[in-house]
């Protein structure tokens, strides 16, 4: 399969603090790729680097056959990359519905946008129940659903997810992962998933990379990674 996103030799730094060193990752088209690593490894930084936000980078990033490194964040979004950031990034003072509408901000196909509202509400019925509620008052799980829903409203080719399981009860996490699998299958949306919960992520993803203090130390089929003894000891806890 071909790669929809290819990162080659990526370095990233916040001011003088170097975080990523020579990171190379490929996200296969139509697949789910997981990026795993401990706290502070640089997972969030990798996603920020892809969207050219808050971090200085060098190296090449190719999306759907075109270089996107150095482009403005909003242009990268407009090309079809939806980023569900660390901390979810919902608009707290706006309603659920307004948040979703903003996801479709750059789209002109009104009828399809209306269909997509229904589609998102079908994935997340909870959002429909609360569509007039201020996003800031939603529960953590609902906020995560809203953040994913807003990303879906963009009709992205690639979905970047930064720890969607963070701070959520196991039941809700299961639910969200089930929906992510459905989205990937139904919409053919490629996914780059950053997770600490390595068990779940390796279950869902076809490919996986392991990031350790800013360097990729392992990459390949999820099943192979999950079977590696050192990975099992360090990340899977058995």
């Amino acid at each position, binding site marked *: 399969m071909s790669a929809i996103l290819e990162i080659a030799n990526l370095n990233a730094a916040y001011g003088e603090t170097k975080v990523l060193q020579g990171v190379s990752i490929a996200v296969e088209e139509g697949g789910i790729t997981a990026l795993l690593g401990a706290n502070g490894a640089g997972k969030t930084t990798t996603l920020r680097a892809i969207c050219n936000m808050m971090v200085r980078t060098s190296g090449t990033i190719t999306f759907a056959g075109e270089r996107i490194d150095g482009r403005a964040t909003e242009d990268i*979004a407009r090309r079809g990359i939806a980023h569900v*950031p660390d901390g979810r*990034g919902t608009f707290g003072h706006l309603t659920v519905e307004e948040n979703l509408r*903003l996801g479709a901000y750059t789209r002109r196909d009104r009828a399809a946008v209306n269909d997509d509202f229904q589609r998102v509400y079908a994935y997340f019925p909870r959002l429909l129940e609360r569509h007039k509620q201020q996003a800031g008052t939603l529960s953590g799980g609902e906020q995560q659903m809203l953040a994913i829903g807003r990303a879906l409203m963009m009709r992205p080719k690639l979905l970047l997810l930064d720890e969607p399981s963070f701070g959520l009860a196991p039941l809700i996490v299961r639910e969200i992962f089930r929906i992510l699998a459905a989205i990937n299958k139904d919409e053919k949306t490629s996914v780059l998933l950053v997770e600490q919960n390595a068990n779940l992520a390796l279950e869902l993803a076809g490919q996986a990379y392991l990031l350790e203090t800013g360097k990729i130390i392992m990459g390949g089929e999820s099943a192979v990674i999950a079977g590696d003894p050192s990975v099992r000891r360090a990340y899977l806890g058995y």
Partner: protein
Amino acid sequence: MQAFLHQLLSGLATGGIYASLALALVMVYQSTHHINFAQGELAMFSTYIAWTLVQAGFPYWEAFFLTLIFAFALGVFVQNVILKPVENASFFSVVMVFIGLLVIFNSVAGWIYTYTVKTFPSPFPTQAWYGGSYLSPHEVGMMGVTLVVLGLVFAFFRFTKLGLAMRAAAQNPVSSRLVGIRVGWMLALGAGLAGAIGAVAGMMAAPILYLEPNMMGGILLYALAGAVLGGIDNPWGAALGGVLVGVVENLAGAYVVGTELKLTVALCVIVGVLVFKPSGLFGRFVVTRV
């Protein structure tokens, strides 16, 4: 009673001017977290442009709308050319830039148009059917124009996609970029709209106050007071605050202390409110979950 009603209504009319400028201040504040102290001078300068156009023979309403376009462009220019380079500077540097702008616009207007006061036409006939014993036709018309402006701005932010995107960009620029909103354009658009709203306030105030470079100084102070009184993070609260300041100022001037001290009284009332409710009367009750 008659006199009281007259003072009250007249306070509402001038309060509308403060409300417009307060709204302009808050629109810029929400997206940049800075008070544009030069907003009043931009309005004054735009009003001079209107005056020039009227002198050149343009009919009033043509001059009015051309001035709005000019004021919009001026607002965009100030935001993109002067403020953008200092957006990451310290708070006080930005305040200095605004105060510098205030002084520059004031003296440039004085240099071009001199400091002698000029009469500025009112678009409303002096003997209109709707004028009466309580308010002059200009005051009634001015109230009408203010209401239309506030209504249009409200509808724009509430019901249009662009208005929604502007609110989003002001609230969370990072997330806005992630959905493809061009945040820089939104800031420029907000500054342009603020400039145009200020210009309306200037053109409505000028027939009463007479046009001169210091015309908007007092109005800016009252508008700022209104914005703080109503809640600097809530445009509609700020506008309402502006109206309240107008009423308090007028009633205090007429009944309590006379015109010399009315500013003092108005400010005392505001300080009093803020002591008890620091976020302003209608300051947004911030709902966030941590």
